């Protein structure tokens, strides 16, 4: 049981009142507490199975400040091994990705098989004697590792609930993406990685509930005719949260009067496949009406799947799909890992176009996202200022709304996106984890 400091008391009260102090975005004490209470115990997204399709394929990923080699063994099993030699703690793998049957430590030469077993110790008998047992000195595996539809998650807490329980009803929304085709998804290359002086929660807020910012933050793209002029454009669609879990989704259709093709604008053949592969008819019907889908899995994985096109002159729609991890580096500092993905069996022309739709609007140079990171950086500076940190920010949008009784999916849904409902739910879970 954590000590309920005055700051935590304020957070508990603040969540219910829809008022949170700005310091949550830039505070060393809170950062340390999050590392222990949240990132030490949550299911954190590591990689997609398509990044490591063959035996020996590996990528290097992080949970908190712990480097993990996410690797497919010769037996086909996916593992995450702490990148730390058991002898003196050296990194045994310093590349970000590759293919290796073994990892050999450059310090003293201890050699591990890609399933983590220690198989070679130089001068083993002479140096360590007959009592030394290599079986006790394998690479440390992440305490928990589970996969949902190709998405690899790890958890540092051996006592954590299963990934299935952790995800709960957000699976229904994830499946709108992961089960669009029975072939599954593939990454379009490695992630873009870049550093932003902001907080992981602030970045996440944009993707879990904030369609309200589109009008102003992304006004430049409205001016170019890429986003519609209607001030209430981003208001339509459902905002859904999963109580008790912290997850949230926004399922946005075409606003009244907007002529946008169904099913995000995916090619007709993909719609037909989805009809066959979606687990339920409700999911297919929701997907058919969807133009923009955002999902955030607590704590720090966000998914964005909007209708889009490769440039402002392109005739037609080419949706894009991105997964991103808001990886905390320090108080007010994150690294973004951002992937583009596509259905494995999508037509080749579409794979090429969807990659461009992603690159030009999201990611490190994206014309949407570059304005987001500008704004997040300056909010974060203010959140660290002596006056600003105590100011309470307004999370009161949509507090008087009542849930939509007709929504066919699970969770608590509101029929309007101008609400902070998903945020209040996220922070309720956040505070609960900090306190437990």
């Amino acid at each position: 049981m954590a000590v309920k400091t005055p700051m935590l008391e304020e957070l508990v009260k603040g969540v219910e009142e829809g008022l949170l102090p700005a310091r949550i975005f830039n505070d060393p004490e809170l950062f340390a507490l999050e590392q222990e209470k949240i990132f030490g115990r949550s299911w954190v997204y590591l990689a997609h199975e398509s990044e490591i399709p063959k035996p020996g394929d590996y990528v290097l990923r992080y949970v908190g400040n712990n480097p993990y080699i996410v690797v497919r063994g010769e037996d086909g099993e996916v593992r995450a091994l702490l990148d730390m030699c058991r002898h003196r703690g050296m990194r045994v793998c310093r590349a970000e990705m590759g293919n290796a049957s073994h990892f050999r430590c450059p310090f003293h030469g201890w050699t591990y098989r890609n399933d983590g077993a220690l198989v070679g110790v130089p001068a083993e008998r002479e140096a360590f004697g007959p009592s030394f047992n290599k079986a006790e000195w394998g690479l440390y595996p992440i305490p928990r590792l589970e996969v949902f539809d190709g998405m690899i998650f790890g958890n540092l807490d051996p006592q954590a609930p299963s990934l299935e329980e952790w995800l709960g009803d957000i699976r229904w929304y994830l499946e709108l993406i992961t089960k669009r085709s029975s072939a599954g998804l593939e990454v379009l290359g490695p992630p873009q990685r870049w550093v932003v002086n902001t907080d992981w929660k602030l970045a996440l807020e944009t993707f879990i509930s904030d369609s309200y910012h589109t009008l102003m933050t992304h006004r430049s793209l409205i001016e170019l005719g890429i986003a519609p002029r209607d001030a209430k454009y981003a208001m339509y669609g459902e905002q859904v949260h999963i109580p008790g879990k912290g997850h949230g989704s926004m399922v946005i259709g075409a606003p009244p009067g907007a002529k946008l093709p169904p099913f995000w604008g995916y090619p007709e053949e993909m719609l037909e496949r989805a009809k066959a592969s979606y687990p339920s008819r409700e999911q297919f019907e929701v997907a058919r009406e969807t133009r923009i889908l955002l999902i955030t899995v607590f704590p720090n994985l966000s998914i964005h799947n909007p209708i889009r096109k490769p440039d402002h002159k392109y005739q037609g729609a080419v949706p894009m799909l991105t997964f991103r991890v808001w990886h905390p580096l320090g108080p007010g500092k994150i690294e973004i890992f951002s992937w583009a993905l596509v259905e494995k069996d999508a037509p080749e022309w579409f794979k090429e176009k969807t990659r461009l739709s992603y690159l030009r609007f999201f990611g490190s140079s994206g014309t949407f996202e570059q304005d987001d990171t500008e704004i997040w950086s300056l909010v974060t500076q203010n959140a660290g200022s002596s006056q600003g940190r105590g100011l309470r920010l307004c999370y009161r949008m949509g507090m008087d709304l009542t849930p939509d009784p007709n929504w066919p999916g699970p969770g608590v849904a509101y029929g309007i996106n101008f609400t902070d409902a998903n945020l209040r739910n996220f922070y309720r879970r956040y505070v609960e984890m900090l306190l437990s």
Partner: protein
Amino acid sequence: MDVTREVLDFLHREAALLDEGRYREWLSLLTEDVVYRVPVRLTRERPPQGGYGGVAEGMLHMDEDRASLEMRVARLETGFAWAEDPPSRLRHFVTNVRVGEPVRTDRGEEVEVRSYLLLFRSRWDKPDFTFLSAERQDLLRRENGGWKLARRLVILDHSTLPTHNLSFFL
């Protein structure tokens, strides 16, 4: 004037336009079929044949053609491009220019050019700044007497980018 001198003039003028925010004029230095690419760079094991390792094939930071570059410039002109309004203070330091032998192709006279780039960036009223370092592998083509940029590949010296966005051109 010899080609090397012409190419140096081109690169220095281009850098001045980029540093002075004269993006419309910068667009006029590009061919209609321009290809502008900034691949993701990764930490990989040393390639046995030498050369730049870890240049990702699948993923880029930017993969632009004429239309998308025009979109990026038009965006900067809207008055609502917050990432660069107020603008960053940029300085493109272009050095180590190596000019290849001009060749005649069916598209005209073309020349391959490699240069090193050190890009200084500062924003707001903060004393902080960032540097990006790269090699640029360009293809210039002579059109109407002057050189234009037909292809640029930017090999970054960064895996994780040290800056909060790429809201400018390299």
